[in-house]
């Protein structure tokens, strides 16, 4: 410990129980582990020094940003160091000529979005925790958001990374060039690696021009299939909306109880649709989306005429998680994802599972990209119910995989989904991942036990 203190100073090495307990968890329900210490690095060199020290001592290191992850990716390891990068929070360069921004890893995602906005640009990935999540955490988990269908996910905006390897080497991966095929695209290996291969210390991000306008629509359906068919028809009509969000019946009821916005409680499904871009195009696409929703049996379609009305309509989706989180002591937010064509099947299956296991599962999510959020409203102190939650989860993930989908669309594997991974991608893929990890982190000290067992 003295060596770490000599390296970083007493202020940046925490060891008291009152300091460690608040770092014993991330945003994932029911996971807790106290670390041996928490250290704060401010430069890549300090990160390298901490990693060299850890290698020398054989102590595991878990990198952490703001601790908002939903799969236990940044949960501490027993006896290990938590390397917190929240204080590496400088924006280094906003380059309006090349449409890029270079930031330190601990910069808050929202700050990047706001900065881009001030110069008429857009940083599209908007994960639900962006007000406090760090960009480093977003890259490590390859976070998504509401705009995935049209704009993609974090990976699509990472042009370069500074990475510190387990042995303390500091590398720059990628470049400012839109086209760059010089060697393996190793930066892509680090995106979504959940802190198991190295520590990301800087990120070079791509920005895009901000769309000039946006139009918001809200449609309600008395049949789930009608909502799913509407989504398919919109996409078949060559429209790529920037938002295509869905709420199921339980979610609608919880949102209405919470926000009182006048949603029909007998509706089976609700779709929030948005299109953005050139005003003329947006106008036309909104008209076509409205017509398609009506053709496919929407009970009501509301098109926002003003910005205030758009905000009001979007409230239904925006308050979904808050509304659900109030209903039960423990809220487990999952992210099973399927090809768009299988959405209706997946949603119906989830509802059946809930009935069969006597659970409350509300589903909402990103209908446009097939990324659903089946949300378990439960109580972690109720052991028999938690056992049923486990069974239900297994069935939901198995079914998603059977439909050609995946166990996680945007939250990562971490600890929470580790046991579902073999079923989803097979032992051969996991074997290759182990091989890769071994070559970069031979001692197995970087976030060990996450994604797969060593």
């Amino acid at each position, binding site marked *: 410990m003295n060596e770490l203190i000599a390296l970083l100073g007493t202020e940046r090495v*925490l060891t*008291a*129980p*009152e*300091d460690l*307990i*608040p*770092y*014993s*968890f*991330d*945003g994932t*329900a029911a996971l807790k582990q106290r670390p041996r210490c928490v250290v*704060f690095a401010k430069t890549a060199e300090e990160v390298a020094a901490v990693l060299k020290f850890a290698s020398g001592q054989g102590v595991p290191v878990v990198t952490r940003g*703001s*601790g*908002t992850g939903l799969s236990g990716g940044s949960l501490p390891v027993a006896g290990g160091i938590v390397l917190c990068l*929240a*204080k590496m929070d400088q924006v280094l360069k906003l380059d309006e000529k090349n449409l890029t921004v270079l930031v330190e890893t601990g910069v*808050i995602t*929202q700050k990047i979005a706001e900065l881009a906005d001030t110069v008429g640009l857009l940083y599209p990935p908007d994960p639900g*925790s962006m*007000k*406090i*999540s760090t960009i480093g955490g977003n890259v490590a988990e390859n976070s998504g958001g509401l705009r995935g269908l049209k704009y993609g996910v974090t990976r699509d905006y990472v042009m370069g990374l500074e990475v510190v390897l387990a042995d303390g080497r500091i590398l720059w991966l990628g470049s400012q060039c839109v086209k760059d095929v010089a060697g393996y695209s190793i930066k892509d290996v680090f995106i979504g690696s959940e802190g198991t291969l190295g520590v990301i210390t800087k990120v070079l991000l791509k920005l895009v021009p901000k769309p000039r306008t946006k139009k918001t629509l809200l449609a309600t359906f008395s049949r789930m299939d009608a909502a799913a068919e509407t989504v398919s028809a919109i996409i078949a009509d060559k429209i790529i909306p920037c938002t295509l969000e869905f709420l199921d019946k339980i979610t609608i009821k919880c949102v209405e109880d919470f926000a009182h916005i006048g949603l029909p409680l007998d509706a089976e499904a609700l779709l929030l649709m948005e299109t953005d871009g050139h005003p003329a195009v947006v106008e036309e696409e909104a008209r076509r989306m409205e017509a398609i929703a009506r053709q496919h049996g929407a009970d009501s379609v509301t098109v926002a005429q003003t910005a205030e009305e758009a905000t009001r309509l979007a409230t239904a989706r925006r308050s979904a*998680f*808050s509304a659900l*989180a*109030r209903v039960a*002591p*423990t*809220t487990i937010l999952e992210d099973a994802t399927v090809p768009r064509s299988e959405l209706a099947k997946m949603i119906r299956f989830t509802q059946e599972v809930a009935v069969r296991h006597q659970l409350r599962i509300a589903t909402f999510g990103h209908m446009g990209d097939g990324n659903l959020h089946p949300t378990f409203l439960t*109580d*972690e*102190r109720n052991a028999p119910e938690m056992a049923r939650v486990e069974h239900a989860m297994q069935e939901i993930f198995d079914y998603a995989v059977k439909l050609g989908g995946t166990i996680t669309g945007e939250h990562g594997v971490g600890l929470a989904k580790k046991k579902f991974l073999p079923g989803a991608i097979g032992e051969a893929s996991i074997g290759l991942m182990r091989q890769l990890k071994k070559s970069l982190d031979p001692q197995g000290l970087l976030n060990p036990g996450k994604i797969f067992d060593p």
Partner: protein
Amino acid sequence: MDYSVLQQCMHCGLCLPTCPTYDETKLERNSPRGRISLMRAIADGEMELTKAFGEEMYYCLGCLACTTACPAGVNYAELFEVARADIETKGVLSAHKRDLVRWLTVKFLLTRPRLLRGVGRLLYFYQAIGLQSLVRKLRLPALLPRSLRELEPLTPTVKRHFSDALIREVETPTPSRYRVGLLTGCIQDLAYSDLNRDTADVLLAHDCEVFTPRLQSCCGSLHAHNGEVELAREMARRNILAVEKSAGSLEKLDAIISNAGGCGSHLKNYAHLLHDDPVFAARAVLWSQKLKDIHEWLAQIGIRRPAAAACAARVTYHESCHLCHGQKITRQPRELLRAIPGLELVELAESNWCCGSAGIYNITQPEMSKKLLDRKLGHIQKTGASVVASANPGCSLQLQTGLREAHRSVRVAHPISLLAEAFRQAKRAE
């Protein structure tokens, strides 16, 4: 500690960016979810209630910004009060000086309305005959021990007349459409009794008959927020009795009005505070139903616009934490300000970020309090406003102290005072 309230926290972290102490240190223990995790560790028997925990809970401002940000609706206000009460019961922070100061202020002065006003009277003469400015000019406070020296500039300027002298117990307008009780506060009664008169005037101008109980007690918020729950309950009972005595009964009133954000937030909580009191529980429920912040009440019955262009000032609005986060009242004060003809309202950046007053926080944690005050003053300067409107006596004192020390001639005024002035001017113009 109510475990189900603790468990409601899903540690998502959305409270972090709204917490002034986390923003300052970037340490989890200084954040709401960090503090809740410590409370939970104590409840689970993983940790003792330690001195460090006690210090942490007194480092928390209790601004409740986290409750606005929280998606899961965690009742942090309750956790905060219960934690501080447990800390006092356990005595982990006990020290002679702290105990003496707490006894003198929270337990002694603030539970004795007559004595408090007596001290206020002495302070008034000390200030009125120029002794205070003489003492300040001669730099005599420099001779005081550091802790007292830092307190001296915070001494409120006491008004010549207190509320009982300015407002009759019953004032009746014609026509009279509503009957309301008016709460005049404790420190507010000494430092801002004119605001209480303004509040009565504005209520009369809205056809409200006003009942103002004599010699009112502190609402008890300072007691509840500083771990003295029993005293807080005693204060609550006294206030209920006082209003009942003045108005005949609570049933006869359409509303009970508070004009102080911090007090109002606590006053609305009497139902919970007295829920197991055999005599007062039902009356406290009625009390909480009728308790309205003045802006809330006026917006509910319809704000009247003064006739003439009365105020040509550029005004910015600082939100009291317990008005915006505690009571979720944000729209109504702005509506009220916009109703004043000629007044230009400019938005203040971070208007709902704590100014560092936070009850007696500026006394207990002067360093952090100063940082927040400087941040607030910086934003106020950027608006170019000549008036900053604030609806809580603690905030107003804090802002006035800061502006005076920075030699800035910005006026601090309650929105209701600005409205009352506008009504008076309009009347003169008639």
